[in-house]
């Protein structure tokens, strides 16, 4: 049976799960299950950069998925990166079971601004929809407002909306029209 597992990697406040729960329930017709939090893997820490390699976190998450039809979304507060790029808002396996989103650079405080919960909520929802979309086969969309558009800096995250464009939305819906959720 296909399930969408949500899991904290390290400490993530409960309110964040409320935002995420509402958003994923709206777009993904799958049973949603919260898993107990996981520690941030030590192997992921890159001391030279003071960041965490997303690949190591994704490797840890993939072991928690019972079958390929299910999905797992890890959410963390640590700053993610990959060797090639200086940072990531999140990463996912295209058409695969794992996605991870970092809240680190979604906080206003990261940019030297006062904390603003509404902004954090919007950014979190957009990034969750974006990375989850990849796990269901959506690639980056040219429609700037679409949640699937590529954001390489925070202003681009802010310029997106908290929903998919009609084309991406339709493609996503088609994934769930076949039996067993089509996943």
């Amino acid at each position, binding site marked *: 049976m296909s399930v969408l597992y949500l899991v904290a990697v390290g400490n993530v406040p409960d309110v964040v799960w409320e935002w995420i729960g509402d958003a994923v329930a709206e777009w993904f017709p799958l049973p949603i299950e919260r898993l107990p939090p996981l520690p941030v893997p030590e192997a992921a820490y890159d001391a030279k950069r003071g960041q965490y390699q997303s690949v190591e976190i994704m490797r840890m998450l993939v072991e928690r998925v019972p079958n390929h039809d299910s999905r797992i979304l890890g959410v963390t507060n640590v700053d993610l990166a990959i060797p090639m*790029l200086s940072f990531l808002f999140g*990463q996912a396996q295209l058409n695969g079971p794992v996605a991870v989103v970092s809240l680190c650079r979604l906080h206003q405080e990261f940019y030297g601004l006062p904390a603003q919960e509404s902004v954090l909520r919007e950014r979190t929802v957009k990034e969750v929809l974006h990375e989850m979309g990849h796990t269901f086969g959506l*690639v*980056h969309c040219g429609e700037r407002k679409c949640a699937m558009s590529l954001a390489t800096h925070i202003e681009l995250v802010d310029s997106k909306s908290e929903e998919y464009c009609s084309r991406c939305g339709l493609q996503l819906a088609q994934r769930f029209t076949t039996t067993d959720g089509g996943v």
Partner: protein
Amino acid sequence: MKKNFPILVVDDEDVMCESMGAWLREDGYRVDTAPNGQNAIELAKVTNYAICFIDLKMPGGMDGIETMMEIHQVRPDASVIIITAYATVDTALQAMKEGAQEYIVKPCNPQEISMLVSRILKLKKLQSENAILRKKLTRQYRHHDIITKNPRMEEILALTNEVASLRSTVLIRGESGTGKELVARAVHYSGNRAEKPFIVVSCAALTETLLESELFGYEKGAFTGASGQSKGKFELADGGTIFLDEIGDISPKLQADLLRVLQERRFYRVGGTNEIEVDVRIIAATNKNLAQEVQLAHFREDLYYRLNVIEIHLPALRERREDVPLLAEHFVNRISSELGREVHGITPAALKVLMSHDWPGNVRELENVIERAIVTCRNGMLDEQDFSWLQKNSAPQTWDIPDVPLGELERRAIVAALERKHGNVKEASAALGIDRSTLYDKLKRYEITH
């Protein structure tokens, strides 16, 4: 579109391949990864990668630059981006010198790499479109697109094929509308200059001064209005072919200049002091009898012999009447499709009319006649009545011809045609059955202003 541009990531670090692969796949690219140079080359033999990200330092075996050079052996068009953790000017220079398109230091900003990839792919898309257009153009002017079953034309086509890859000058003679430019293009696009420019200059359409600056270019201040430097057609045609139409109409001064270019392949821009060397094949065309012009001292004998290395004399359409049905059918298909008209062919009665016409304007006239008939055609086929105006025009008529020199008759015919067409040179030249450059030449000769 992105799937048409596969990407290869080559790095000995597993994490690097996995993470970079995942990031690029999110963007819709097909991505392969290789842990070393040898593996990368094997993959490149199978897949035509658009971009290869290659780590500079890979222990035990080939380094990034060696890998890049080997990949370029099998995939010369692949764009290589060399990745390194430590930037040094020397290695960057070496990588670029050996053919890397970019050199980036990791980690870099996501925006930087996203823009880099899209910039490279945009260029590749343009290059690929350009290659397709060039192929189309080549196909359009290959010999088999010159429609004929006339033995003399077939001999000419065989000759153009033989001389296509030579640099020898070609002189094409033939009446207006016989397809001199088409044959010139066939020579160019069948030879080893096909990928280079084919530049057309209509010598009759310009005055001596204009033609001189058109052919050789000019330097800033060479004459009033020369506000900047400009390249001439000879420079633009470098590596390719220049087609000099109506060569029999150029002035004695330009004949001397042209002779020098033919002898030395060098010239000066107007007002210039630096000699410019070019590799250009010259194809000239004329509807005049140049040998006769030489005898009349209107054309330099030495230039005539320089131009007339390979001579092609195109027959008039009335001398190859068997081609009329083939050409007519070809024009019906092409023009009806271009104009979006449902015309599917020509009836035998209409063909009889076309076969009996003398076609003083040759193939161009036939093309114009078919176009006019298609525009007015009410049925799906061109019938006899669609060409009734042509019959009328070609039927013997009794004219009151005044007792004046022949040239005066021609002048009056041109003036009348221009008046009927309200000064429109294109329409007037079509009505007279001559091309525009010939009409301009005659306007100049008879000093007719319109």
